[in-house]
């Protein structure tokens, strides 16, 4: 009875019976909401990844875990929507509104719960990070996965004409708009809360319009409260910074979001700490670090003209270099925002002899015509693709090219001078053997970290003696060096090197894998249980999917895998330039659209077209494999853009065809979306955290070829 009454009052039902205009308007609103969901979801995804990176270790494992959880839970949401019985516009409107508002709660929760769950200041291990990411990103990811196929189901239930392919296209247009808006505009000017507010605005508006059109005025009025609160909290001056107090304390002097990360400056008792994405990268008065970094290499040289510092120029560093009266210091730092904040606070003091160059260090080394007496690299451990580029054979070769005769390169890696574990011996040995291929002499000095000095000239470990010869006064080295860096420690470290350990190259980044093992050792855990569990469930999932769904699974897998490979290769060659990396990601997003449009157009041609797309992808992967194996040379940046665009176009092309082959009347959208998303999740994890670090780029491409070849066989046998 109640149900009947409700149906009688349902304006949508009424419109079906009394005219199509009203229905079209509602359908149009839902379609616009799909577009708006695309905009919002991509922006929220970008903001969420950055947020988790600011909370936990910013390595590939964390990035992959965030994307993995997101994609898997979205896939789950899609699956659930497939079986959700009630197809109601009212419910859809409310879900859309919740989807628009939830991200603010999600980001706030990520910030606030960290110190509730974990110990303040602690970096947790793999499994706690995974659980935290999964728990806090699941509600939104689930809704995103649920809402798209559900929107289609609602439209269809009301008799609207809209296909899964059209849904896919509409969502893609939203994704592209959201990606471009967020990556190229919002991230430059707004903080995360404001980005969420701006990117969710359209979805909020459409949701409210839907509620009004459904004449649910009470719901509308009730909805206004969270909507107003949403915007007040997003744009209010105090709320967003206050959510950072848990992590940074209340002494925040400066808070900036740059495309490269979160820059926070705190001040306590007159002393500054500079944070980059949650990690304290510099604290005032760290004279030990400055002296070790500068004097160990520079005191080796008889004559110093130009010095290149790649990162790490804060605090006392320039003053220590200037003790050698060099002609000039070039200081390369990637993030202009970091430079600005450090300069404003006096952590970087402008000096006549110093030029600050805001660019990628490797890019500068590749393109500069200058010759340097010394190149001092002060970067974090090479546990990410981005940083590993500074510890490879190719990088050392490029660096040697810009060094004067007998010039020196120095950098450091974390290790305990009292004891070397097997994994750290591997790490040091791999880098030692790599740098030794390029320089005649390599000396390890076990200081606060293990310092690598590489030169064709002679090297000495008696640093205090060299400083004494030059009458250079130091605070740390003068009194502590002989006690800390004893002869037996130097001997112990240098003799620990295993000459058989393979080298680290751009396309075979072995050290990333070694460092990930070191990371797991630190927590006494192993990812094996996780991987085994995942593999088991994946096999079960695949055994239940339709053949067409498997094709989309493999396509999602390959699309994310290729995107990671392209981003990796691009960074190796051109450096990490935010806008260009953003352009690559956008090229992938853009390619999906024409692919989906073409697929929609030719969807009736079925299996043949699916096979052509499969062949196209395999061909593109083979081309990539040939390039990565035999050339690895620079090629125009546009080639990477074109490659990404073409590959994703083929991916987008397959979706409407697979949907058509299964049959629209059975509402396959949810299953197809799920397959695509689960495949993308698996591809992210497999390529980013396993295949590239373990076996290198070529092996990763071969893995993708095999995945696609298997799906081709599936299509052929279908």
């Amino acid at each position: 009875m109640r149900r009947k009454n409700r149906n009688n009052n349902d304006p949508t039902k009424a419109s079906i019976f009394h005219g199509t205009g009203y229905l079209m308007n509602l359908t149009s609103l839902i379609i616009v909401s799909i577009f708006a969901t695309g905009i919002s979801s991509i922006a929220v995804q970008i903001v969420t990844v950055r947020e988790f990176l600011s909370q936990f270790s910013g390595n590939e494992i964390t990035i992959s875990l965030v994307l993995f959880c997101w994609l898997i839970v979205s896939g789950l949401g899609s699956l659930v929507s497939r079986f959700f019985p009630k197809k109601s516009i009212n419910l859809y409107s409310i879900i859309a509104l919740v989807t628009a508002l939830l991200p603010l709660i999600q980001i706030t929760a990520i910030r606030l719960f960290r110190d509730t769950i974990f110990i303040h200041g602690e970096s947790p291990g793999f499994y706690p990070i995974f659980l935290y990411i999964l728990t806090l990103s699941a509600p939104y990811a689930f809704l995103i996965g649920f809402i798209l196929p559900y929107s289609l189901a609602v439209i269809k239930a009301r008799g609207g004409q809209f296909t899964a392919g059209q849904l896919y296209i509409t969502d893609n247009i939203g994704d592209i708009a959201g990606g471009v808006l967020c990556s190229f505009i919002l991230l430059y000017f707004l903080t995360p809360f404001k980005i969420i507010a701006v990117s969710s605005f359209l979805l909020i508006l459409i949701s409210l319009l839907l509620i009004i059109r459904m004449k649910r005025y009470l719901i509308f009025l009730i909805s206004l409260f969270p909507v107003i609160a949403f915007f007040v909290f997003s744009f209010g001056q105090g709320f967003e910074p206050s959510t950072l107090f848990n992590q940074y304390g209340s002494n925040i002097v400066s808070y900036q979001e740059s495309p490269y990360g979160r820059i926070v400056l705190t001040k306590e008792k007159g002393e500054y700490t500079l944070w980059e994405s949650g990690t304290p990268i510099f604290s005032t008065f760290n004279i030990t670090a400055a002296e070790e970094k500068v004097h160990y290499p520079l005191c080796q040289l008889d004559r110093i003209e130009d010095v290149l510092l790649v990162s790490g120029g804060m605090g006392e560093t320039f003053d220590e270099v200037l003790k050698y009266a060099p002609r000039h210091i070039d200081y390369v730092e990637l993030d202009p925002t970091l430079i600005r904040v450090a300069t404003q606070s006096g952590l970087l003091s402008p000096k006549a002899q110093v030029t600050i160059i805001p660019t990628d260090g490797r890019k500068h080394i590749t393109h500069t015509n200058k010759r340097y007496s010394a190149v001092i690299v002060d970067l974090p451990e090479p546990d990410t693709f981005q940083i590993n580029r500074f510890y490879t054979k190719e990088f050392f070769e490029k660096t040697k090219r810009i060094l004067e005769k007998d010039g020196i390169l120095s950098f450091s890696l974390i290790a305990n001078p009292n004891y070397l574990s097997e994994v750290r011996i591997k790490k040091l040995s791999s880098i030692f053997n790599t740098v030794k291929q390029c320089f005649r002499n390599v000396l390890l000095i076990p200081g606060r970290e293990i310092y690598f000095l590489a030169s064709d000239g002679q090297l000495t470990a008696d640093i205090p003696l060299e400083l004494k010869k030059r009458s250079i006064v130091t605070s740390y080295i003068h009194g502590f060096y002989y006690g800390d860096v004893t002869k037996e420690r130097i001997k112990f470290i240098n003799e620990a090197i295993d000459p058989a350990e393979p080298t680290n190259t751009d396309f075979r980044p072995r050290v990333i894998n070694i460092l990930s093992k070191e990371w797991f050792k630190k927590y006494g855990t192993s990812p094996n249980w996780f991987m085994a569990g995942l593999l088991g469930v994946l096999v079960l999932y695949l055994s239940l999917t339709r053949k067409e769904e498997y094709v989309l699974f493999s396509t999602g897998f390959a699309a994310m895998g290729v995107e990671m490979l392209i981003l990796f290769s691009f960074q190796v060659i051109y450096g990490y330039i935010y806008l260009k990396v953003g352009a690559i990601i956008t090229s992938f997003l853009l390619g999906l659209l024409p692919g989906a449009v073409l697929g929609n157009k030719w969807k009736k041609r079925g299996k043949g077209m699916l096979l052509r797309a499969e062949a196209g992808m395999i061909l593109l992967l083979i081309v990539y494999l040939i390039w990565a194996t035999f050339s690895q040379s620079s090629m125009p940046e546009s080639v990477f853009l074109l490659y990404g665009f073409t590959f994703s176009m083929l991916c987008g092309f397959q979706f409407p065809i697979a949907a058509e082959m299964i049959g629209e009347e059975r509402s396959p959208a949810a299953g197809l979306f799920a397959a695509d998303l689960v495949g993308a999740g698996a591809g992210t994890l497999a390529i980013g955290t396993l295949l590239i670090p373990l076996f290198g780029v070529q092996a990763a491409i071969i893995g993708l070829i095999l995945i696609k070849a298997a799906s081709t066989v599936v299509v052929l046998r279908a």
Partner: protein
Amino acid sequence: MKRHISRKEFLKEMGFISLLVATEGHCFWPSGKNEEKKDIRGHVFKNDAPKDLWKWSIEGFHYTTNGKDVQCGVCPNRCYLRPGDRSVCRSKVNIGGKLYSLAYGNPCAIHIDPIEKKPLSHFHPATSVFSIAAAGCNFRCLNCQNWEISQRKPEEVNHYELFPADVVRAAKEKNIPSIAYTYSEPTSYYEYMYDTARLARAEGIKNVWVSNGYINRKPLEDLAQYLDAANVNLKSYDDGIYRRLNGGTLQPVLNTFKLLHEKGVWFEMTTLVVPGYVDKPEMTKRMCGWILKELGPNYPLHFLRFFPRYKLDRLPATPVKTLELLRDIALKEGIHYVYLGNVPGHDAYNTYCHNCQKILIRRIGYEIAEFNINDGRCKFCNTPIPGRWGAQVGGSK
């Protein structure tokens, strides 16, 4: 090709998804112990003992047995081990109803350090110390800089072979006056340390214990008869912080200080000033009050600057001004000798006479530039200066 999924199949799929969540969720919280979130104390490793003893094993000291289960009595963890279990410190196992140490004669680190590095500022300045460590620790400090040996089993680390007599012989051959049991937690290799210390004492070599102080009375009493000096961490004066950052408790550490004082072992105290935890002036005042009441003003206190390390790498370095503030508080409260560490070039490395305030030892790092103590007394005002000064200052560069 085209087929619907039935309700039954749907339930099956959901079952698999639940399996995924359950499988992954299983791994998250080790042992499912809730207190692990905020109390990181270690736990016994069930069925983790090796099947057979190895060359570097010895029957443990200070344990009780009912013929089957054993209970280690060396440290306040008092690990109750069933056959095949391994202790919290990872070094002790129950094999056949007996407690064995797996860390005997197998040091994983051997170095020669300046005594000031321990840090000991009032114990034979400018001498060298033969420093050894075997694997293991009864704490779980989040900032441990030696975690690769302290948080590992003896079987998991690369090690040398150096039995107690060999350690003493090596120190003698190198003409080094002291042996330090350091880097990891020597309480976890108690038997090795005890036997070495006993032999060293017989050969006129001094013994230095660098420890977290988490040890029971009886084993410490036994050890103390051979100890010449100790540097013991007083990581904070708050039991909650001990549980959260270190995986231990405060009272046993305080008991250790009292016992060392009672036994006349020279010791110095070290507090790592972790920002947000151990930097509270009020806590420092309470800590100094306890020290003065129970131990007196003469034992030096070292405040060390914290740098992000190991798992505790999302905190800033301690501001130098915070260290100076705590030092001022401690001096005002009445501790005679308060030093700062990890701040090269700071005046607080020097020793000042607590009576006339003149400089007794001017230090440049580990080296001594000026030494104004004669026969253990201030050269200027003749006040006795607490410590073990020896006949003369040796080896200063």
